[in-house]
């Protein structure tokens, strides 16, 4: 029997969602201040209006639904999934007011793309956008990558039990420290330390390449936020191609790696356990899948002969591959070159890399290295079972922060989420084909959206059908939250209609 949600359920969901919405509203003050610093009055006003609307909605929710009860699992999951939708709807207000997005749906698409660290964009005339709006575009992945809920946990949420349920709902099932609020603070510490270091390095490289000082550091900060949080936004429409610098590209590759690394691994390395990086199943799996997909891409590119020189192969072939594998989406080629210059085999290698994704509990999307590692280990265990004498007990171990004995429930969970991702990639490809796009193009763009990558082969443009925009928005949302919160929300609506 399905139970109908009670008033207390709605109050808990409303109260905690309200707190997160207030948090989102306050973050919009950052681009407003930047706008004022650069003497951009109208863009600053866009953000002040959006902050006001968002804060009022958040305050109304917290007052109307005031409760002192802690969240249960179902409520925690629903708060997360609804908060992400609310953040998209409210975060799109300043973008829409700027006039650089063709419709409110386009603005919502870009904000969801930002929060989910995807990087697909529908902005028009990006090269003439204000600093404030450009900062907001890059700030959304910085907030969403670490987790919108993680921000709220740092500042607004006191109840540790309810906090953990929201933390898990946001696809972060590993605690670094015993207290989930301390875990959230460590995640932010890593991000802020790298923000300062990388902005300095990228800024200096920008100045050396002839950029003005303020512009160089602004670009440095924006590029870091989008690279570390594995989103593919860049301040200029030509993306990373704009900088024409090998050094800039190498630095962004390093930042992409850092972003695709499990925060738990960061914690172990930062607390003295430096050997962990060479033993961890995720860093090993990343090396193996990277080598595997790069060889496929390399063979494909050699077949068509697009990049005959080693340096060009590295800067065009490997860069797109690592960008896809870490689910960042930075590009040093134009979108249509994937279709015109790459050939089917190279594209297949890149699609595999995008589908695999980065580390679990990182800012990356996709199936994740830990799940792939578990599936391969389970396969090894079954093979050992077949060749072993019948009464033998075959145990399989894997190293992820500590030695773990592989259990059936871990394999089941890994396989189920992997299957869900594959279905999501497939559904998006079917919708793309429904709108008349070729199979490979549709699969490429769908995988890019669902794995929160952001590489585009040219389908994602302001002129694409609204149905496809909505499909990609849902794919980005479900892919980032890793399905459980989304499934819980669907179950909640079914219970509200059919429950007793």
């Amino acid at each position: 029997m399905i139970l109908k949600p009670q008033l207390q359920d709605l109050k808990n969901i409303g109260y905690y969602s309200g707190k997160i919405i207030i948090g989102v509203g306050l973050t919009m003050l950052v681009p407003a201040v930047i706008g004022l610093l650069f003497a951009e009055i109208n863009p600053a006003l866009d953000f002040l209006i959006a902050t006001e609307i968002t804060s009022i909605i958040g305050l109304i929710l917290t007052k109307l639904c005031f409760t002192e009860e802690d969240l249960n699992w179902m409520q925690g999951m629903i708060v997360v999934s609804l908060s992400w939708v609310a953040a998209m709807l409210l975060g799109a207000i300043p973008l829409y007011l700027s006039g650089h997005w063709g419709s409110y749906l386009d603005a919502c698409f870009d904000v969801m793309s930002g929060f989910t660290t995807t990087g697909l964009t529908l902005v028009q005339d990006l090269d003439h956008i204000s600093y404030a709006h450009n900062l907001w575009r890059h700030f959304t992945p910085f907030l969403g990558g670490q987790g919108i809920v993680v921000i709220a946990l740092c500042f607004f949420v006191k109840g540790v039990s309810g906090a953990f349920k929201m933390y898990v709902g946001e696809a972060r099932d590993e605690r670094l420290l015993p207290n989930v609020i301390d875990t959230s603070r460590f995640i932010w510490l890593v991000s802020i330390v790298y923000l300062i270091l990388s902005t300095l390095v990228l800024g200096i490289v920008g100045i050396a390449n002839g950029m003005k000082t303020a512009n160089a550091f602004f670009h440095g900060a924006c590029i870091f936020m989008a690279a570390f949080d594995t989103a593919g936004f860049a301040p200029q429409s030509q993306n990373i191609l704009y900088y024409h610098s090998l050094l800039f590209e190498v630095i962004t590759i390093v930042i992409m790696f850092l972003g695709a690394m499990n925060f738990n691994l960061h914690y172990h390395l930062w607390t003295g356990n430096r050997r962990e990086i060479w033993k961890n199943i995720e860093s090993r799996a990343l090396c193996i899948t990277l080598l595997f997909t790069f060889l496929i891409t390399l063979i494909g590119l050699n077949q068509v002969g697009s990049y005959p020189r080693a340096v060009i192969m590295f800067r065009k072939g490997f860069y797109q591959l690592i960008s896809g594998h870490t689910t960042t989406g930075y590009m040093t080629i134009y979108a249509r070159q994937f279709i015109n210059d790459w050939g089917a085999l190279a594209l297949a290698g890149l699609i595999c890399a995008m589908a695999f994704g980065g580390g679990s509990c990182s800012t990356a999307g996709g199936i994740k290295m830990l799940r792939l590692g578990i599936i391969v280990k389970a396969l090894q265990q079954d093979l050992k079972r077949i060749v072993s004498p019948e009464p033998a007990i075959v145990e399989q171990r894997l190293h992820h922060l500590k030695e773990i004995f592989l259990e059936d429930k871990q394999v089941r969970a890994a396989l189920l989420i992997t299957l869900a991702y594959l279905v999501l990639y497939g559904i998006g490809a079917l919708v793309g084909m429904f709108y008349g796009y070729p199979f490979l193009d549709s699969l490429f763009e769908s995988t890019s959206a669902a794995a929160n990558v952001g590489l585009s082969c040219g389908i994602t443009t302001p002129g694409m059908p609204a149905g496809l925009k909505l499909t990609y928005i849902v794919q980005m949302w479900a892919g980032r939250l890793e399905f459980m919160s989304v499934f819980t929300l669907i179950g909640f609506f079914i219970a509200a209609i059919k429950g007793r």
Partner: protein
Amino acid sequence: MKIKSFYNAVFGIGTEIFYAVVIILAAFLICIAAYFFNYDS
């Protein structure tokens, strides 16, 4: 204790960057190998 934490964090960052640089160098070597392979053929 604080000095040890700082030391660990700095070397932790160094290890992470070293890991990324090793992979980048490996990829570059593969690109060079592919170039010579193509050149011979």
